[in-house]
Each structure stands twice: as structure tokens, then as C-alpha cells.
């Protein structure tokens, strides 16, 4: 417990988290720090390239130390189980509102790249190891939950007004830019190895934490602007967005621990399960479920769950995973 608090404070006391808070506050007091859209987009591309590239390089250096097959299985399990639980919980909470339940399930089943990156930073700082291929697992986990959620909506709802076919959404989900970029960079990092790493690390590796800091400032502002819509979301969904990540995090970590995955990677599985998507899922859901309310899913994911996860969630999931390991190890 003591350790948890200490980890929490040490996580808070990093430039990234503090700049996120600064951005949030700036947006709330309507102080205009106008970060151009194009910058947010390129920083997001940079972070994915860099994280993928570094993961690939680490695999090339250390080989597949952890259990890749198990990890792939875990990824799919989380991608099926978490959106399903979210869906049925929300059906209860929203009194049978299938569409919005499915829309939100797609977001909480999918993952957030920046939450993952912040978790990696936390692990690096704490000196805890994790598998280089975890970035690949993240890419794997982006789409399945979206499919599962749409399927659930289809099962429970007869009238379905979208003009977009499942096929179109499938294509979009599989060849989604972020998936291609993450896997591509992973592969390139793996292929070019140490030589490639040395050539480009002054761009992809050294300034990475600083770039993340700038990105989090912007994320803070985006979240802070969204928070005004909190009233539209309402208390029920607001609390859901705050608390359900913990449920998902425990599910993710537990599955990973049961498969014997190490502390670092299992923590990351917890973080991925707990994280919610705010790029891939909204785009797909807007197309497939036009009647769903974007104010719900975007605000919950971006303005509540994301801040919670990066500020308090990550150290929490780490402590929980460590506890789970002790419990399951003792069995």
C-alpha cells in the first residue's frame, strides 16, 4: 500500500503528467494555447513510429524472451472478454440502450497508444522489464474489441440503420493506419537492428520523453475542453468511465498472470485492458453506429478514463498485477 502511494506520487512527479495537468487546467480556465491540429497528428505518428521501432529493435537484440504465442492468445482473450463485460454492464446501466452500450464497449475493449506509452515510461523509470513485442500486442488489440462490440449490437438489435457494411468496417479496422504503422515500425526496427537503431535513435529515442511531454500537454487541453461536455455524459456514465477501467485492468492482468507472463508485460496487459480507445474506435463507431451519441463515448474515453489511467491507473495496475502474481503464485 505504501509502495502504491509512493509509485503514484513518483508517477505524478514527472514532466509528462504535470504538463498534462497544465494543459487540462489551461483549457478549463479557457487560456488559449493553440496547438495546431497538424502537430497533434504528427506527434501521434511520431510516437507510434518510435515505440514500434524501439520494440522491434529490442526483439532483434534480445529475441523473443517472453512467450509470444501465449501473449497473442491473451491479447485476443482480452479483446473479446472486456468489451463483452462492458456491453452487458452498460445494457443494465443504460436500461437496454443497445446502440450506446455497444459504442462504448468498442472503446473500452480497444486500446490507447498514449496510455501504453506512459505505462512503458513508468516501467522504464522503475527498472521493470517487459517484452519488446508488447507493442505488437497493443496493435493486435486495437480492432477485435470493435468487431465484438458491433457483433453484440447486431445480435441484440434488429433494426440497424448504418449503410456501412461489416466488410467495409473490417477493411478499415484491419488496415487502420495505426496498426500498419505500429507493425511496420516494429518490423523495420527488427530488420535494421543495432545499425538502424544507432542511426535514428537521436530522433526516435533520445527526445522521445520530451515529445511525449509536449503531446501530453495537448492531450490535457483536449481533455480539458471535452470536460465541459461532462454534463451531457451524466453521473452514471461518468462514474463508469472512472471505475470500470479498474475492473478491466484486473481482468487483463489476471489473464496475463494466469498464463505465467512476467510482472512488466502483465502490467502492460492490465494497462491495455484498462485503457480505452479515442482514435480508432470513435472513427469506426461513428460509421457503424451513427445513432450512438459521440458525446458519450468520446468524452468518457478522452476526458475521464484517459486522465484517470495515466495519472492514477498505471501505478495502481502495477501494484494490482504484483499482488495478483503473489496470490496466483501462492496457489
Amino acid at each position, binding site marked *: 500500500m505504501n509502495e502504491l502511494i509512493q509509485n503514484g506520487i513518483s508517477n505524478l512527479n514527472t514532466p509528462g503528467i504535470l504538463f498534462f495537468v497544465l494543459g487540462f487546467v489551461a483549457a478549463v480556465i479557457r487560456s488559449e494555447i493553440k*496547438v*495546431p491540429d*497538424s502537430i497533434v497528428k504528427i506527434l501521434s505518428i511520431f510516437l507510434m513510429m518510435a515505440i514500434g521501432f524501439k520494440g522491434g529493435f529490442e526483439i532483434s537484440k534480445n529475441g523473443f524472451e517472453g512467450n509470444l504465442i501465449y501473449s497473442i492468445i491473451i491479447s485476443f482473450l482480452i479483446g473479446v472478454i472486456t468489451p463483452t463485460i462492458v456491453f452487458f454492464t452498460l445494457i443494465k446501466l443504460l436500461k437496454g440502450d443497445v446502440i450506446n452500450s455497444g459504442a462504448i464497449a468498442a472503446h473500452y475493449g480497444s486500446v490507447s497508444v498514449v496510455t501504453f506509452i506512459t505505462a512503458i515510461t513508468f516501467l522504464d523509470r522503475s527498472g521493470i522489464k517487459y517484452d519488446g513485442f508488447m507493442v505488437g500486442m497493443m496493435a493486435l488489440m486495437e480492432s477485435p474489441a470493435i468487431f465484438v462490440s458491433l457483433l453484440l449490437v447486431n445480435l441484440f438489435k434488429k433494426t440497424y440503420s448504418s449503410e456501412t457494411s461489416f466488410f467495409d468496417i473490417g477493411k478499415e479496422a484491419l488496415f487502420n493506419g495505426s496498426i500498419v504503422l505500429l507493425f511496420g515500425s516494429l518490423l523495420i526496427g527488427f530488420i535494421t537492428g543495432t545499425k538502424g537503431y544507432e542511426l535514428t535513435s537521436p530522433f526516435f529515442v533520445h527526445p522521445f520523453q520530451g515529445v511525449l511531454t509536449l503531446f501530453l500537454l495537448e492531450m490535457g487541453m483536449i481533455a480539458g475542453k471535452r470536460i465541459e461536455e461532462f454534463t451531457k455524459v451524466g453521473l452514471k456514465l461518468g462514474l463508469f468511465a472512472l471505475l470500470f477501467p479498474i475492473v478491466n485492468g484486473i481482468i487483463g492482468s489476471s489473464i496475463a498472470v494466469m498464463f505465467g507472463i512476467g510482472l512488466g508485460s502483465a502490467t502492460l496487459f492490465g494497462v491495455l485492458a484498462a485503457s480505452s480507445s*479515442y482514435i480508432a474506435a*470513435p*472513427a469506426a463507431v461513428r*460509421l457503424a453506429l451513427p*445513432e450512438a451519441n459521440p458525446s458519450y463515448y*468520446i468524452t468518457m474515453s478522452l476526458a475521464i478514463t484517459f486522465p484517470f489511467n495515466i495519472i492514477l491507473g498505471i501505478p495502481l495496475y502495477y501494484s494490482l498485477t504484483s499482488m495478483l502474481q503473489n496470490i496466483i503464485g501462492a496457489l
Partner: protein
Amino acid sequence: MKKLEIIIESVELSKVIKAIEKVGVRGYSLIKDISGMGKHGKSVSTSLVDVNEYNMLVIVDDEVKINQVIEKVKPIIKIYSGIMFLSDAEIISC
């Protein structure tokens, strides 16, 4: 001749353009990065998500063609978000 202005969300843009091209208009113009307010409230786009990001398509053509476009685009707008404005305009032939 008629001028049709279609305001449509980014996620639906390619679908609308395909519909227009199927009708076979003389041409169209696209103004990106529109925001605004309508039946669905104020558009609150963020640079991270495409949702709630609008575009304006401008088409000037014969009334018949424009009417065909309208019929094609109506159902898309009905399900999603957006609006169409119709007015008179002439193409200056060069």
C-alpha cells in the same frame, strides 16, 4: 443552373463523393475543415478524432443533375449528420 452546398461529416465524405460521381456531375469542389452548429448541437471536433469534423461540397450543375445528387445524398444525411443548401447560380463558360 443550381448550386448545391452539402455539409457532411468527414467519416461520410468518401461515400457522398462516390454518390456524386455516380450521378456524373460536371464537377464539384471541396472545402475542408468546417465546424458549426446544427440539429446535433455544436460540433466539438478534436484533432485526434475525425468525428464531428465537417466539409463543404459545392456543386454547380443543371437542375436535373442537382436533383439526382440530392436524392442520392438525402439518405446518408438522414442517418448521419449534415445539411444541404440549394440556390441559383450560373457557370461562366470560358
